[in-house]
């Protein structure tokens, strides 16, 4: 009775535990440290990954280095070491690149560090232009001496004009460099970076500008006084209108070629000493060119015209105005998970066409689009579901247009509708299904194989079910029936497979081998005597039970030998092994012979 209570209790307990486990089977991970690693007041350091340590610590020294480098570049320029200045500039560029990657890696572009990086990039731009201009001015100085000695007024005029344009450019660079000083110094003060080197570089830059100005004055003086102008039959005039313009406006440049054959002559027009175009004169020697303001820095620029490389017009200058822009963005429309955004870019002089406007989603550039003639743009983007902040941004330092940004919209993209693509639409799913099915099938086969295998060390013929009676059916000859050699239930003649299995096993494990043989014999006798549970019989029991059978003598000899091998330490030789088989055969034969009785 008590046993039953215990059993029921154990069963109920097991069932309860299995039930509890099944409840959790949907999410088998019951607990991991990540589950409660973050609370309002702290995070569990055990689950946090160590930070990439040095990057943030490198930032401030790098910024300090970057603030000092322009000074060295400028000092070298001041002393005329353009090559060394170039090397410094290259170093500056590499340092700037490492700052760029650091700011991006640390995700700090919106901080003061990001501002510093932008100003630093501009400094790099200014300095690389300065180095190039200074290098060219050095060249002009040597050329000047050569042309003066060669008394080549045309070339001399050309380089003087170029000098003028370079001086113009350098003084503009200086203005830009100056405008950087105040914000850069304030940022560096905030980060406790020493900015005296940078502030000194401002003065040195001014020195360079002054020196270039002096050189240009001298060049002009030389041109005007020391060289007799070559008597040229031609004279070239140039004028332009209007004298200032904004982005995508045109400046009309025109003039006349006078003297000699003036019709259909080629005139080259140079803006900032770079060839802008070449036009041909009409029959009166009149020429005209429409200069379209595109990718050009705001500020003052010089231009002049040249005929056949020797006749120069005067230098005329014009101003490029930095136009203020305003960017509009209409309320974005959500349509089937996509976001349709449209808007326009306008300057104070009308719509701006042909520039790229960036569409920002959550602070990152999503796409960009060219504006059309009305300054309008329209894009479709597909941000993921959820809430996003969307705005448009225009920023292009190459054109004389100011930066502008539209207002920021908050949009919510609804999650995709529940109607998802069918399970079988994607090949991954099908593959997964097939693989899963294969694995399942494999384990079913594995489980079955395990069940089979755990019985397999009992030879197969021993597992063959035997009729309990052991007697073979008496076959009564029936004239109507075809003659049968053997009935369906008649056992096969003494299985040679027993002896083969015995011989096979005998080499490696004689104890197992004799057991195989004994099991066979026992099963045979048990069949004969209709024993109920033959496998529970010991050899001697079998022997005792078959004491009145004719095979008794053989069997007792067999059992004696069997016991000496199976339970003793005796290892039989070849002859004894064979005698096992002989005895087993004899017993088998005797069983068959006895059947007739």
């Amino acid at each position: 009775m008590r046993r039953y209570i215990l059993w029921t209790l154990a069963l109920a307990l097991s069932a309860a535990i299995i039930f509890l486990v099944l409840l959790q089977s949907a999410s088998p991970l019951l607990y991991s440290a990540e589950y409660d690693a973050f609370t309002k007041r702290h995070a569990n350091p055990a689950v946090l990954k160590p930070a990439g340590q040095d990057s943030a610590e490198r930032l401030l020294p790098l910024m300090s280095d970057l603030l000092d480098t322009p000074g060295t570049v400028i000092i070298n320029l001041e002393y005329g070491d353009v090559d060394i200045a170039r090397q410094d500039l290259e170093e500056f560029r590499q340092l700037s690149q490492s700052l760029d990657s650091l700011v991006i890696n640390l995700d700090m572009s919106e901080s003061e560090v990001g501002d510093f990086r932008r100003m630093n990039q501009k400094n790099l731009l200014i300095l690389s232009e300065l180095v190039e201009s200074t290098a060219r001015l050095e060249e002009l100085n040597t050329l000047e001496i050569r042309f003066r000695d060669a008394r080549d007024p045309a070339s001399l005029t050309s380089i003087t004009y170029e000098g003028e344009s370079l001086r113009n450019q350098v003084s503009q660079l200086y203005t830009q460099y100056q405008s950087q000083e105040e914000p850069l110094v304030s940022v560096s003060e905030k980060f406790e970076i020493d900015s005296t080197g940078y502030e000194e570089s401002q003065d040195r830059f001014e020195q360079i500008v002054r020196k270039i100005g002096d050189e240009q004055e001298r060049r002009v003086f030389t041109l005007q006084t020391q060289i007799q102008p070559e008597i040229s039959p031609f004279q070239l005039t140039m004028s332009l209108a209007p004298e200032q313009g904004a982005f995508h406006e045109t400046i009309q440049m025109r003039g006349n070629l006078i003297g000699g054959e003036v019709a259909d002559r080629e005139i080259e027009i140079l803006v900032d000493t770079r060839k802008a175009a070449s036009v041909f004169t009409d029959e009166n020697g009149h020429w005209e060119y429409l200069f379209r303001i595109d990718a050009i820095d705001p500020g003052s620029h010089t231009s002049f015209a040249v005929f056949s490389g020797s006749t120069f017009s005067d230098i005329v200058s014009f101003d490029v105005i930095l136009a203020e822009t305003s960017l509009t963005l209409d309320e974005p429309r959500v349509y089937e998970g996509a976001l349709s955004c449209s808007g326009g870019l306008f300057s104070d002089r009308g719509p701006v066409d042909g520039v790229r406007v960036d569409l920002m989603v959550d602070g990152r550039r999503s796409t960009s689009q060219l504006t059309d003639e009305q300054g309008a743009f329209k894009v479709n983007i597909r941000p993921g579901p959820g809430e996003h902040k969307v705005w448009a941004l225009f920023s292009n330092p190459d054109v004389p247009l100011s930066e502008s940004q539209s207002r920021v919209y908050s949009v919510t993209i609804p999650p995709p509708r529940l109607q998802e693509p069918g399970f079988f639409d994607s090949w991954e799913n099908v593959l997964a299904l097939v693989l899963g099915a294969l694995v399942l099938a494999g384990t079913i086969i594995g489980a079955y194989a395990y069940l089979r295998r755990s019985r397999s060390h009992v030879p197969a013929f021993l597992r063959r079910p035997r009729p309990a009676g052991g007697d073979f059916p008496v076959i009564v000859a029936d004239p109507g029936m075809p003659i049968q050699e053997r009935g369906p239930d008649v056992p096969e003649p003494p299985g040679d497979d027993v002896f083969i299995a015995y011989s096979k096993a005998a080499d490696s494990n004689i104890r197992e081998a004799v057991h195989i043989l004994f099991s066979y014999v026992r099963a045979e006798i048990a069949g004969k005597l209709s024993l109920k549970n033959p496998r529970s019989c010991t050899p001697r029991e079998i022997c005792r039970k078959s004491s009145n059978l004719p095979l008794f003598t053989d069997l007792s000899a067999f059992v004696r030998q069997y016991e000496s091998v199976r339970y003793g330490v005796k290892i039989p030789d070849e002859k004894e092994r064979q005698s096992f088989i002989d005895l087993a055969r004899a017993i088998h034969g005797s069983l068959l012979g006895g059947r007739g009785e």
Partner: protein
Amino acid sequence: MRMVFWITGFFLLVCLSVFFLHISTNTEEFSRYNMQWNGTSQFFGSRAGMDATEIRQISDLAGRTGSFLLIIAPERPFDDRESREVHDFLTQGNVVFLADETGAGNTLLEGLDSEIRVFPANLTSMERQYGDPSSVLAHPSSPDPLNTGITSLVLNSPSYTKGGTPVFTTSLLTWADDNGNGRIDETEGLGRYTILSREYMGEGTLYVLSDPSVFINGMQDAGRENSVFLGRLAGHDGLDLLIEQDHSSTAKADLLVLAIIYMKSSKFMTTVLFILVGTGASLYAWKRYSEVS
């Protein structure tokens, strides 16, 4: 049969002790009975923690000298009387160390007439120990016995203090992440924030740390020189360590834990329990033994 009996007994004993261990702990933030990462059981179980005197009410402070009072993560405000008592304690030449990030300790600071205040904020730094932005590093600022020889401390979601003399400050690349997105936005300015401030009051010294998380179990082997710092707090200049257990979150415990603590602290109850359990166990063992043999 006897073997099964012993084995079953052994497993039952294991299960029982695990069960008692379970009910004698809790999961309250900062609780000294919380053995999880966010409890302070390790600090209170350390030698210094065991030797320290518990201050169950502020009035117990009266008349003490040469002491170092730790107030870890107060969760309710101090009233005027309590502030006055702490003030008296402080001006008599003792040291008060307040670790608070929620601003609950500001009532005490106001009552003490201190110029230091705690500003609750989600302080985040580029200089961090772990990948998570909350593991801010702090560095010594002005010389103080608490920071000599230490190069950096790891904090865990600290706030910041203003006023007083800075003893530990963060690096310049630190900001208050107001919108909690883990990155610095245009509205969030970088700067150096004070983590530990000091103020002398009368003969005594007041320290205010804006991050009590340095005491939790999870931070005990967080690296850097935190253990040096904690050791210095515990054995500060050979002063007697007092630990406030009235306002502090470290004293948080639920009813069951309290009962067990009572049981542990009362010698009589322990003896009774021991005798009860011992008698029961031996009776059972004797009965089973006689049954079997």
